[in-house]
């Protein structure tokens, strides 16, 4: 794990210095792209907790990202337009809407997880997808909040002295949250909780026979994963200053899976590397051709067929955990 930690530290340093470098190079617009990488990375880190360590293939994580984004969008809408949501007044305070986004997404994940974890394998993939579609159609049919067109944010969330309307400040907020969750996840997967998840992933039958009732641990992980995906959603809403049903679409769920695999499934830092690579690839292909998906598709297929361990697998060398 030494090599992997060292590489992660270098990555952290590169990110921390990035705004200064971009400024020096006259590429300040790239800070926005880097923020986006961190946000997708955060969502992918969250997904990896259940996908990589829990072996649970959720094809519906966009539901949690989108729900978090809509919490920010709807409360911002009411704080400027008046009125309220279910009796709650609107708010633009980040200290309120960010935790609320996590809470709502977490509760949603708790409910979806409690039902979905009754199934396994392919049925689990499909039922998580179905629940996400359910949420997608729910928001499409809310004309007050833009329906299919989505909802513009009046302003980024208000963090008091911290003005995240500034792209560089916003970037460091993203970096801070990614760092905090990475450290938390690092402890989590090394603790008994993480070991139990991995045991259930590798041999659920034996874990049961040894005395572990798996459901509650998987549900706890699913809930936490959903809450952090909701946090990523809150950031995403702030970054784009816009909330739309596309944040809930199954394309985003698919992209998050791709990012985790591309970076290295079940590795601590892989999903971040995956997010950087995926968004960079998308960005570069877009620069070259409007038909960038024609190339992205086959690249994904090649990654699945020939680079099973992802980018972080190259860093780590020997397979562990």
């Amino acid at each position, binding site marked *: 794990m030494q090599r992997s930690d060292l590489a992660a530290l270098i990555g952290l340093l590169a990110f921390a210095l990035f705004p200064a470098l971009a400024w020096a190079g006259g590429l300040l617009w790239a800070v926005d792209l880097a923020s986006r990488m961190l946000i997708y990375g955060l969502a992918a880190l969250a997904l990896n907790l259940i996908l990589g360590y829990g072996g649970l293939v959720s094809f519906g994580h966009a539901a949690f990202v989108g729900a978090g984004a809509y919490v920010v969008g709807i409360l911002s809408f009411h704080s400027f337009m008046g009125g309220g949501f279910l009796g709650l007044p609107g708010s633009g305070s980040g200290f309120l809407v960010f935790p609320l986004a996590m809470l709502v997404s977490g509760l949603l994940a708790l409910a979806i997880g409690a039902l979905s974890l009754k199934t396994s394998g392919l049925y689990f993939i499909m039922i998580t997808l179905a629940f996400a579609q359910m949420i997608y159609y729910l928001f499409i049919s809310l004309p007050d909040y833009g329906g299919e067109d989505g909802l513009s944010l009046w302003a980024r969330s208000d963090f008091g002295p911290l003005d995240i309307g500034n792209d560089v400040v916003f970037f460091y907020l993203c970096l801070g949250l990614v760092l905090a969750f990475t450290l938390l996840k690092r*402890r*989590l997967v*090394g*603790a*008994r*909780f*993480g*070991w*139990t998840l*991995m*045991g259930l992933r*590798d*041999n659920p*039958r*034996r*874990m*049961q*026979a*040894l*005395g*572990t*009732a*798996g459901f509650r*641990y998987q549900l*706890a992980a699913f809930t936490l994963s959903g809450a952090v995906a909701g946090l990523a959603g809150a950031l995403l809403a702030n970054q784009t200053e816009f909330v739309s049903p596309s944040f809930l679409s199954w394309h985003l769920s698919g992209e998050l899976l791709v990012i985790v695999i591309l970076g290295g499934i079940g590795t601590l830092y892989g999903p971040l590397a995956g997010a950087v690579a995926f968004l960079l690839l998308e960005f570069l292909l877009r620069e070259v051709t409007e038909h960038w998906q024609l190339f992205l598709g086959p690249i994904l297929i090649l990654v699945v067929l020939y680079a099973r361990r992802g980018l972080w697998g190259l860093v780590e060398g020997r397979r562990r*955990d």
Partner: protein
Amino acid sequence: MTEARTTEPGAPRPLLRASGLRKAFGAVQACDGVELEIAPGELRAVIGPNGAGKTTLISLLAGELKPDAGQIVFDGADITALAAPARAQAGLARSYQITSLFPRFTALENALLAVQARAGHAFRFWRPAAGDPALIEPARAALARVGLEARAEVPVAALAHGEQRQLEIALALATRPRLLLLDEPTAGMSREETQAMVALLSGLKREVTIVLIEHDMDAVFALADSITVLVYGRPIATDRPEAIRKDAEVRAAYLGEEDGGDDRPARQEAP
């Protein structure tokens, strides 16, 4: 002929009593009214021809299968309705005929998973499990018990078949069971490995009550205090090893066609 003859008057309360256990898979009656009484400290072997329902019996006792009918009482408490994890918590542990480990982890980490599974809830999010003496020490002890202490840091995939079978037992032991259900611990073993396993099991005898399914008759007669013969899901005899050796019905049903093959319930015809 189905009563358990090992329970003499005045004997202590049986640790495990199964009565009227039935389990059918479609038209196949894999377990057809099994009566079983295991005394504390006993080593009971369960033998029978292929497809006699031996593995099904273990799975029923361990809670991985639900019986169609019948009752299981463990240490005076009715556990029939408990699922596998709760039975493990109550002190029942099983091993598998087909090795069932955590192949991506080392031998020690496997034992550690077993220790922490038994320790109850695992909602501990912060302290590293790998450095926790409350887990490591019992895990090492379980490895030592089966003679794997020198191989603790070796990944399971790199262990020899015999060593994996030893680890299989170690996982069950790491849960500190009061009743150990062993499903063919010598399956696929060479002569030498089998002898080592028999030595290991005779060391465990008296320490923990054991129900042993085994095809190797030398191992059975070397280890068992008493033997139950299962044919077509029914126990046809339970007695001391010498008596079983002489029992004409048993010889006709089983010993005459002993082949030491695999236990495959699918091959069984409905009676």
